[in-house]
């Protein structure tokens, strides 16, 4: 061995070493490693295991997932109005049209034209709205009916979101019999996932049939959104759900994620159901918080059957950000990590993406592509999916 040891750069050394996954024997050689100057609290992953109770099954009926009909038109509107941070109430979209054109609207001006007609005279309101808004026929909406079966067999009904276009939402409600269920008091509450136009602005349609229905909104609504509740003629109780876990009835909890969303919206409320012998079922509006946060939160916060993520339904807008490593920015790979056993996706998931899930053999429950839903890869309008 030479007296003068050869000095090499680390990267050259590492290229010659077979580091593999564990780093081989080198890391076992007791190289000095030192912690920084301050002792840190290392949390690792702590699971809170909150008990949200258990239910027997849930069934989701897709009232509408077609939030709008032409994506090109919608995105053209967003960009024309100034982009993704512009206040949604300023677009001059229905129902807040003041006739001034794209990007020149306001809640007050739009509402002034229709307030006197809400929530009972929606046809008349829509005529005014149609004449004053930008691209009114492009508006659809998102809404879903959840029927929960308790352990003793009792059935309970809840509504998630309330669409956008008054005309389209009424059509869908009538098609599925939601109007009658509301009028009969069968639906116990309306949960709003987030303040977005396509999930929330159809509120008068629900209130037309059940003006006093309990309303659960996530914390984060802006002034206009809160005012809308009153202006639409809501007479019931409003619960502003704080960020975190919110237990509703055994087997059903919602979780509010406090996070900024495009078009000047804040906060999303997602639903978690603990289905006996199956596991956790998640129902989302758009999953703006991202699938990582969504699934990690379930894992960290809630105790669920068999410690199993069983199912998911909704718009899986799974990764709103540019990942710094495109190799990992792959929806099909991410979803696999969570091991869902039953998947119903639509709305903002992306049809091509849904098809890739199917091609990859994921347990996607397909739909029937009726009532303006575009493809069977989506659990479409009028389709149902049951868990448990």
């Amino acid at each position, binding site marked *: 061995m030479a007296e003068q*040891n*050869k000095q*090499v*750069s*680390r*990267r050259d050394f*590492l*290229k*010659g070493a077979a*580091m593999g*996954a*564990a*780093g081989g024997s080198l*890391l076992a050689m007791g*190289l*000095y*490693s*030192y912690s*920084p100057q*301050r002792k840190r*609290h*290392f*949390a690792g*992953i702590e699971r809170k295991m909150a008990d949200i109770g258990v239910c027997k099954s849930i069934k989701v009926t897709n009232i509408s997932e077609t939030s709008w009909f*032409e*994506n*090109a038109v919608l*995105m053209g509107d967003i960009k024309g109005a100034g*982009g*993704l*941070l*512009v206040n949604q109430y300023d677009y001059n979209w229905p129902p807040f049209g003041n006739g001034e054109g794209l*990007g020149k609207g306001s809640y007050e001006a739009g509402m002034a034209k229709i307030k006197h007609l809400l929530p009972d005279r929606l046809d008349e309101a829509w005529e005014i709205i149609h004449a004053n808004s930008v691209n009114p026929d492009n508006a659809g909406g998102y809404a879903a009916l959840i029927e929960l079966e308790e352990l003793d067999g009792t059935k309970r009904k809840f509504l998630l979101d309330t669409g956008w276009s008054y005309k389209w939402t009424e059509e869908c409600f009538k098609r599925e019999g939601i109007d009658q269920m509301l009028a009969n008091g069968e639906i116990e509450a309306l949960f709003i996932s987030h303040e977005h136009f396509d999930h929330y602005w159809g509120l008068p349609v629900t209130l037309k049939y059940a003006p006093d229905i309990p309303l659960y909104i996530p914390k*984060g609504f802006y002034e206009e959104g809160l005012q809308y509740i009153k202006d639409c003629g809501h007479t019931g109780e409003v619960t502003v759900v704080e*960020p975190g876990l919110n237990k509703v009835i055994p087997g059903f909890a919602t979780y509010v994620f*406090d996070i*900024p*969303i495009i078009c000047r919206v*804040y*906060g999303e409320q997602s639903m978690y159901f603990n289905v006996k012998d199956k596991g956790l079922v998640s129902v989302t509006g758009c999953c703006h918080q991202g699938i*990582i*946060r969504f699934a*990690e939160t379930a894992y960290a916060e809630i105790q669920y059957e068999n410690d199993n993520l069983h199912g998911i339904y909704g718009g899986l*807008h*799974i*990764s*709103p*950000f*540019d*990942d*710094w*490593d495109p*190799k990992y*920015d*792959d*929806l099909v790979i991410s979803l696999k990590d969570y091991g869902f056993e039953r998947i119903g996706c639509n709305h903002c998931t*992306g049809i*091509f*993406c849904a098809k*890739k899930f199917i091609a990859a053999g994921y347990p996607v429950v397909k739909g029937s592509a009726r009532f303006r839903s575009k493809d069977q890869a989506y659990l479409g309008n009028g389709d149902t999916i049951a868990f448990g």
Partner: protein
Amino acid sequence: MNLNDLCKSDVASEPVMAVQELLRGLVVRTNLVPGVRHVLGWRGVKDASHGAEAWTMRIDGRRGVYGLVFDVMVEDGPWRRGLFNLCYFPHPEEELVEQVCVEASLVTARSGYVAEVRDFAVHEHLLDLFNIGTLELALHTGGQAVSVRLESVTRQQVTATHGVTLEQDGQALTLVPPGGLDQDFPAWAVSLDLLRVLAASLSFNLQRPPTALTSAEQPGWVRAYDRDGGMREDETPDNPQRQLSLVYGLDAGPPAAGWQLREDGDGEFADEAWWSAHRIGDFKAVDKHALGIDERPQLIVVTGFLGSGKTTFLQNFIDHMNRNNRFVAVIQNEVGEVGLDGGLLDHDYAVTEIDEGCICCTLVGNVKAALGQIMGEFHPDYIVLETTGLANPLNLLDELAEVAEMVRFDSVTTLVDGANLAASLTHTTVARDQIRAADVVLLNKADLLDDTELGAVQEVIAGINGVAPIVPTIRGDINPALLYGEETATPAMIGAEHGPDHRHDHFHTCKLTFDEPLPAARLERALDHMPAAVFRVKGVVRLAERSQPQVVQYVAGRYELSEHPNGEDAEADYLVCIGRDLDQGELAQLFDRD
């Protein structure tokens, strides 16, 4: 001050939640808008939270990955300070690997390194080895005031008294000589780069610049250890700990106990972006171009023979773009493919929809006019020009020169049917031209070929186009971010190996290399005087005046320089020229003198 869009928790009653919500709001809201996040310096984020708020991110000018994870909340009078552990995970090939401790550098070479980094907050050893400082976000209980503060030692220095020697193949290799530095990491400089991005983002979101800046220091430390595990720590003023605070909404208070104000605290940071980033705030009014936001859509040309899988590739592309809130316009340049009724047109294009995620148009008139109309009506972020059927893309490239001020020309992507290439090359000359024009070739249907066949096809392609990288794909499935950057060219686009001159039908590519950095004026003069026969030049060069290599993109008389995303580590000092009847000597001479 617009704090309400970033954080809605009540600071006084829920400070722990509030400070974490503030980081989350800051990262998320800024990254919602592609143009904004890019100009502020973001290059991708990934949520790494498990209980405690944690994020990983990359920024412009740094090849590695930063990590921030919530540590603890501290009450300090009316302030509630959220302390976040700041880490830097070097790219395995970057220079900074030499400056972390040896144990850390070993970790960077492990095959599981990137996966662990993506989830760093649950790997305690990563926090130990790669911590470089503390980032603090604070909220004021009295009302609307926010501050961001960075604390870090100038250099993290640890001496190995007895050196570090490791064995490889029976040979003893000295990684650190006795008494040498095991760790010599420029913690302050690396931390400061991230603070710049966060502070500029804060200014943007709050729609105001900071009201106060405090730059302070106190003596730092150096350490030494010996082979028995004994460790010494010596305080030294020569390696100070530094602290930089930016307050929004209040005047600065005195520096914290133990810290002294630095001289020239203001001067050092006079030109930082955080003083002006708030001007991006009012999107409708502001001149984005002046602020460096390039709103021109990116133009990608996609070509490929029949059956190559272009449609599937485009569907994948559009789907990916939509999920990132980007809007795509696809333009086919062949009339007749779609069966148009000429009577309905008062535009230079006709719209037919391909899919839910984009608009599809067919050119019937002038390229430039059509683009202008499409952009005015739909404001796309990306324009894909799809050459259908038997169009020769080389002809199209000449036309694109006219539209350079409207769009940012990115590249030509050619899809090749790996299973049927030979047949298409035999029957037509267009297939060959499509490959020749490519900046990147997607060798599709790679699943139908075994390794030998794959290699053979790649050789055929390389024989036609020695410059373009060849990427095997299955059903056109590839993340577009790997092919198209937000800059005008990405590392993937500038091909690795460059072949010799090609002479086929007077169409050449030739490569110029440079031994030394070029003076900027000389480069620009050469590009201004490119002969007309040269319609494309692309490459990476170092300029005498700048440390960051510049990506050069030249198309038919117009060119752009931009900083290479890999920073100083980029492969540099070459230009590839594409054109007709090129004379290598003549081109090289253009760069020889000012």
